[in-house]
Structure formats: C-alpha cells, structure tokens
C-alpha cells in the first residue's frame, strides 16, 4: 500500500490523465446520444494530448523559447535543463488539429443523420431502420 501511494504521488499526472481518458472512452462506448458520444471522443483525445504534453515537463524549467539569443556562437550559456522538452508540444499541435478535424467531420455527419431521422438517439434510429 505504501509503495502504491508512493507511485501515485510520484506520477500523479499520468494517473490523472489516464482516468480522464477512461471517462471519455466510456462515454464514447456506452452513451446513447450521438452528441454525447462526440463529446466523449473529444474528452478522450484531449486527455491524450494532456498526457503527452506532461511528458515534456522538467522541474524548474521554463518554456522552450531561448532567452539570450544572439549571444554569439560557440560557448553560450544555454543549458538544456533550463528549458522544457519542446518535442511533445510539437506532436500535440498536430494531434489538436487532427482532433478538431475529426470533430468537424463527425458533426457534419450528425447533422446529416438528424436531417434524415429528426432524432439523435441511437436506439431510436436503429428502431426506425429495422422497421423499414
């Protein structure tokens, strides 16, 4: 039990984001309303983005924009441990754009489904499909 508490405290960011991911995943699978499933998808993808961004954190470091630029080539006082890891931020810029695009296309599909069936509840739609 001690070891478990120690683990959670040392890596609480990962635990938090994984729980958030699972909430989003549950909403995507188990909810009936199409818009609630969409919101679940957004929560899931946002939690993954936060998970990645938290990988790049370094204790006591600042944002990766170099402060003393033009200080001359060669020996400059740029210490890597002063700046956080920029690579996860770059990857997640891409993931944010992908998430927004998927959300946009899914919304367009939901609008089309609503125009056809006048409802957004999945069980009602399946019932009407079976009646045909």
């Amino acid at each position, binding site marked *: 039990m001690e070891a478990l508490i120690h683990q959670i405290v040392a890596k609480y960011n990962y635990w938090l984001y994984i729980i958030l*991911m699972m909430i989003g*995943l549950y909403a*995507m699978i188990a909810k009936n309303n*199409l818009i609630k*499933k969409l919101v679940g*998808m957004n929560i*899931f*993808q946002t939690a*993954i983005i936060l*998970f*990645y961004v938290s*990988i790049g954190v370094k204790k006591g470091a600042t944002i990766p924009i170099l402060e003393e630029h033009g200080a001359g080539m060669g020996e400059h006082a740029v210490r890597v441990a002063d700046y956080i890891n920029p*690579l*996860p931020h770059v*990857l997640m810029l*891409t*993931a944010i754009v*992908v998430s927004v*695009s*998927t959300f946009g*296309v*899914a919304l367009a*599909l*939901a609008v*089309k*489904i609503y*125009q*056809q069936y006048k409802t957004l509840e999945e069980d009602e*739609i399946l019932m009407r*499909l079976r009646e*045909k």
Partner: protein
Amino acid sequence: MSQHYPVLLVTVPLLSAFIISGLSWVKKSLCYPLALLALGTSVFCAIGLLLRVLDAGAVEYHLGGWVPPWGIAYRVDLLNGLVLVVVSSVAFVNLFATHKTVQKDFPEKMGIFYTLYVLFATGLMGITVTGDVFNLYVLLEIASLTAYALIALGKPDRAPLASLNYVFIGTIGACFYLLGIGYLYIMTGSLNMADIASLLPPIYHSKAVLVAFIFCMVGVLIKMGFFPLHVWLPNAYSCAPEPSSSLIAPLMTKVMVYVMIRLIFSVFLPDFSFHVLHIDHALVWLACLAIIMGSLLALAQKNIKRTLTYIIVSEIGYMVGGVWLGNRLGMSGAILHILNDAIMTLCLFLAVGNIAYRLKGLELQDLKGLFRKMPVTMAGFVAGGLSVIGIPPTCGFFSKWYLISGAIQAGQYGFMAALLFSSLVNVVLFFRIIEIAYFEPMESLHGAASGHGIRQEAPLSMLVPLLFVAISLVVVGIYSGTIVNHLIIPVLPKGIG
C-alpha cells in the same frame, strides 16, 4: 530525380489534390485528367522505386535534409516497395474504372470527390513509405478522414450512420496507436523506427514496453477489421457508394496488415514479438475464429455487397494468422496474400460496381439471369470468386498453399482446418451466386423484356479494367514463385524460424 522517388510518389498526388480542388471551382472538366496524371505518376515512381530496391537494397530518404532521429526519414525496403506498387496501381485502375459511375452519381461535386480520392491514396502511400511512427499516425488520420467522407456519400438513410460508427471506432483505434507510441516515447525518447528498435532491447522486459505493444497492436487490429473488432466494417463498406467502396475495401485493411508486419519487423523486433511475449498461439486461435465467423456470417447475407465485406473479414483472419504462425512459410503466405487479396477484392468490387451501374438493387434475387445480360462482368466476377476459393492457377491458391504449409510446419492444425473450412464455405457462397445468375430465368426488373437488346453490358471504360484485373489474377498466380523468392523471402528478418 530518381533519388527523389520516395517523396515524389507522395507529394505529386498531394499537390495535384490541391490543384484539383481549386479547379473544381473554376473549370470542372480538368479534374479527372489531372487525377489520372497524378496517380499515374505515383505508379511510375512506385515501380521505379521497387526496381531500385531490388538492385541496390533498402533506400533511405531524409526529409528536410535532417538526419534521423532529429528529422523524419523514409525507408523503403522490399516489403514497402511491393505494397506501394499494389496501392498505387489499385487506386489508379479504380479511378479509371469508376469515372462513369462518379459522373452519374455526383455530377456537381465531382471535383471535390476526386480531391478526397487522391488524398486517400496519398495517405495510404504515405503510411507505407514512412519510417517514423508519428508520421504514420498523421497519415493514418488523413486516410481515415477522407475515407469517412467518401463512405458517407452513399444512400442518405444508411451511409451517414455507418460512417459515424466508423468514425467512433476508427478514432478509438488511432488513439490507441497514439497512446502506444506515446509509451514508447516515454521509454526511449525517440520517434524513428530504426532508432526505437536499437533502444528497446535493454528494456524488453519492462511493463511499459509490453503495454505499448498491446495498445499499438489493438489499435492496428481495430483499423484492420479483425474479428471481434470488425463491427464497423460490414456496414461501412456495403453502404458506401460504389466508387468509394471499390477504392477503400481492397486497400485500407491491407495497409493496416502491412503496418502490423512493419511494427513486428522493424520496431518491436521479432525477438520481442515471438520470443519474449508468448501470445502467438493465442493470436492464431483468434485468427481461426475470425476466419470461421467471417465465412459463416458471409453465408447468412442476402446482399451481395455485404457478403463480400464478410469475406474481407475472413481474409484478414488469414493474414493475421499467417503472420503470427512465426515461421518463414507463414509469413511469406501472409505477405503474398496482401498482394493477392488486394487484387481479388478489387476484381470483385469492380464487378459489383458494374452490376450496380445497370441494375437497381443488389439483393441476391435481383441477380437472376445476369449471365445473359452482362456476360463479361460475370466472367470477371467468377474469376474473382475462383481466386477467393483458391483454385489454381489464380493467385488465391498459391497464398493459401503457403499459409497451409506454414500451419503444418508450425503444428497449428486448427489454423489449417479453418483455412480448408473457409474454402468450402466460399465454394458454397460463390456457386450459389453463379447458380442464381446463370440458371434462373431473367426478371423483368432488368428492363429489357424482349429478345432484342438482352445484352446490356456496362460501358467499355468499366469493362476493360475489370478484365485487366481478372487477367492479372492469373498472371500473378503463375509468377507467385518468382515473387516470393525475389521479393518476400529476402525481406524476412532473421528472428523468424
């Protein structure tokens, strides 16, 4: 210029897609020729690249001039090269064959349709040629997004719902893959496939690498349509309009099988996948289940397109089982089956597209007497069916032969039994369709009641590609031995028995 082939075959279609979308506002008639030109250039570059790899070994291309792991690198070896030729040729032949259908079904949105078509082909080719795991994710999303849109253009009562279900399940798959490579990044700090493979061996036994493997694999299996994660596939592929389904069905799932093989060969080396983890037996049993359930569900369908989609589920079972058999014969059979299944599925879906062009419905009873009305199309369909059953000299026989030999060598008799069972079920399936189409008298649903004009074939631009694909089924079958010996055996890594 030939050293730029790896990037030209992706960027020429990409640039043309933007020009096509611009032209669709200004001058619509130029969209189709430009798309043909773009995909034709890709076919040319892919064949040139394969010949270069056959001559000189694996080709590397550094994008932006940066050396990996600091930049993105493309790496083409024989496995990539073969799949690239398949993807570009299938997309090109399908573009040519479905032009008339697109003109009939989407007259005013034709330009944007071709934009999405070319972007889908670009995405798949980019997945195949890349050597960077995050680049693969981005291109996977391009291919998926355009596929969602292309599928949702079918009948308005079924297609958007099928596509939205595909959106949800496909996003879960892609996000699981993203989580998997995130875990790999935490443990190794790198995103380049070769670099990760060199950094992983010391940490093979850590829990994070195991979970990364599981999540990457599950994500790829979801996008591949492996039973029981296949629930999106039948609806999405059968409700799609014909030009989209004959593009997406032969290609998307096979490229995902390629991704699985690439992850096993080049990221988690065969040492890890086969010798540290002991899941190969479990996966082969799951593949047997996939084959049997796919075949049985195909028997239960009344619509010819849904039957074909369940056949795809069963074929994915062949390939996954072949890969996880763990010996050279099984792996060769699986890789050969990627090539063969793409051609077979293209042939069958093109034939169904021709039938849908002339008929109003695709239920089995609508096909009565079709042999007299569309003999050439049905001949192509029969050729595809013979290949699915596995009759020599069509290509399906040879890949099944390798898979069965691999199963016997590995002692997996259940897999061999499932393969034979599925062949028998396919015999029943196809002969039922052939019997309805040949022997039953014609329905008046076909429109031509009198003796004059009974033959109403599809137009020539749709028949010639179908015949070309049907003939290539036999040609690829005859040359299977050459293909396996020169293109497949050299690429298998040493860790496989």
